[in-house]
């Protein structure tokens, strides 16, 4: 039996006043939920309408329904501000970084869960400890390492940093899925003559596909949305990523809300696709570790 069928709110005395009060209370709760949900969805409406309406129309009723439409802001976003190339710059960093994370965390979590070697426990503890290091704390030493390696303002530098920062969490996440793979299967593969890499590729990875999907969507989302490291490690106009481009718009186009909204919407396309199509995978990753 699920908890939902337990009438926790049941009124014991058959008083009408109490029953009315209870109905009023649940209506109030429901209205609160509607209000919060409206605030959560409003950005979509607001940004779409602001991006597609004229400036004068916006100023007449900033939050309301558009009356006079225009596509000027959207075309400006590509001509005057180069949002297209910012988005491309982001992809050129995020996609390789996510690929590196997927390969390295598959290898590492497979080794950590299914092989025995000296210091295995120590390596697991280290992964958990590194998960607890806040990125801001190591910003300056990482800046120095990248500077000394000649990789400042080079996409490769940010790609490697992104991969390293998200690797501990990704190994941890994938390891929790690897644990569920029975070792009998691995032994069977070994008896059939498959090597470690072959076993990982054809036996283990197909079995942890939901975990891999979670890992890919979560890392893509984190890195696409990341700001601090991107701001510090890629400082030239030519390789600026989309989040930095947006944050710096305000200075140059401070009152051009139509243009800013068009840019925001463009930057929201990948997150929105993930929101619509991969919500379940994302949710699985975000609650990993909360409930044992």
């Amino acid at each position, binding site marked *: 039996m699920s908890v939902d069928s337990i009438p926790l709110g049941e009124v014991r005395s058959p008083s009408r006043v109490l029953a009315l009060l209870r109905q009023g209370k649940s209506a109030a709760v429901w209205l609160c*939920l509607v209000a919060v949900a409206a605030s*959560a969805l409003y950005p979509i409406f607001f940004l779409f309408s602001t991006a597609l309406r004229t400036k004068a129309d916006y100023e007449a009723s900033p939050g309301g329904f558009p009356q006079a439409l225009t596509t000027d802001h959207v075309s400006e976003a590509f001509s005057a501000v180069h949002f297209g190339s910012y988005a491309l710059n982001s992809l050129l960093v995020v996609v390789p970084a996510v690929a590196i994370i997927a390969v390295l965390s598959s290898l590492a979590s497979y080794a950590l869960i299914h092989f025995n070697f000296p210091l295995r426990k120590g390596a697991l503890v280290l992964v958990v400890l590194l998960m607890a*290091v806040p990125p801001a704390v190591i910003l300056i030493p990482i800046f120095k390492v990248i500077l000394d390696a000649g990789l400042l303002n080079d996409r490769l530098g940010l790609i490697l940093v992104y991969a390293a920062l998200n690797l501990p969490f990704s190994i941890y996440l994938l390891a929790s899925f690897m644990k569920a793979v029975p070792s009998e299967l691995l032994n069977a593969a070994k008896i059939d003559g498959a090597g470690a890499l072959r076993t990982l590729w054809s036996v283990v990875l197909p079995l942890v596909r939901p975990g891999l999907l979670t890992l890919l969507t979560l890392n893509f989302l984190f890195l696409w949305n990341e700001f601090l490291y991107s701001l510090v490690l890629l400082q030239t106009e030519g390789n600026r990523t989309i989040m930095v481009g947006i944050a710096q718009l305000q200075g140059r186009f401070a009152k051009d809300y139509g243009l800013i909204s068009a840019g925001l919407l463009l930057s929201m396309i990948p997150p929105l696709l993930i929101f619509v199509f991969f919500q379940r995978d994302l949710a699985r990753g*975000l609650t990993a570790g909360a*409930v044992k």
Partner: protein
Amino acid sequence: MLLLLPAAALLGWLMVYPTGEAIHLSFTNWDGFSPPHSIGLENFSDLLHDKRFKEALLHNLAFVASMPIWVGLPYGIAWALHRKVFGWKFFRFAFFLPVVLSPVVIGVYYMIVLRPNGPLNSALESVGLGFLAAEWLNDPSIALPTVIAIIIWATMGIGVLIFLSGLSSLDTEQIDAARVDGASPWQIQRHVIFWQMLPVIEFWAILIVILSFTALFPLIYTLTYGRNDTSVVDFFLYQEAFTAGNLGYASAVGVVMLIVIGVVGGGVLGLLRIRRRGA
């Protein structure tokens, strides 16, 4: 183990070494150009007397102090969704949207919505609540609470998810037993469900402490740029390092930040545990 080598090399180079180097640099006067020179504890003693740093740290603590709302709101929502209120599937979908948005997007969006003659104030005026209109981000007395409200709004969806997954694994036998014994809904909530949910609440509380110290930079950068009494330590760290060029000093800020997170996180867990013993 050969399979571990690539991950170990990358983590060693860009995680383990930088963590040690963060501590090393915090004892230097590195400016980004000349080689760092050790200056002992000078950065730390300067920090103790740096008014801007202390203010920023207090602001972070204000975020931590908002924890009751930060926990209560998603818990309440999760409870309602768990009881399958009308439209719960739609609500679960809607509350998740802010979770996928970049803090930069959220910051710029609210920067527009909260402008003095922006959508929120004009909406308040058009429904006759004009007296509630305010300079949300420009008035130093309400700018910080406004930013706190924004981050609670932005992270609420994660909290709802975490609490929902906790509620779905409640031990229903205990709840049934309490009900048979005549416990009121509030007593059941307080004495049965709360204890079962405590590990999940602790997890969320620790996440809030970490968010309160390390996730604010993009919001502050886009909403106020640290003006109007809203500076926080990660913003202060960035400014010291990359606009003032005091990278050694900023490293010390990072080290202190790590210590404070540990102390505050431990304190919060301690408080929750005391409640456990008291009951």
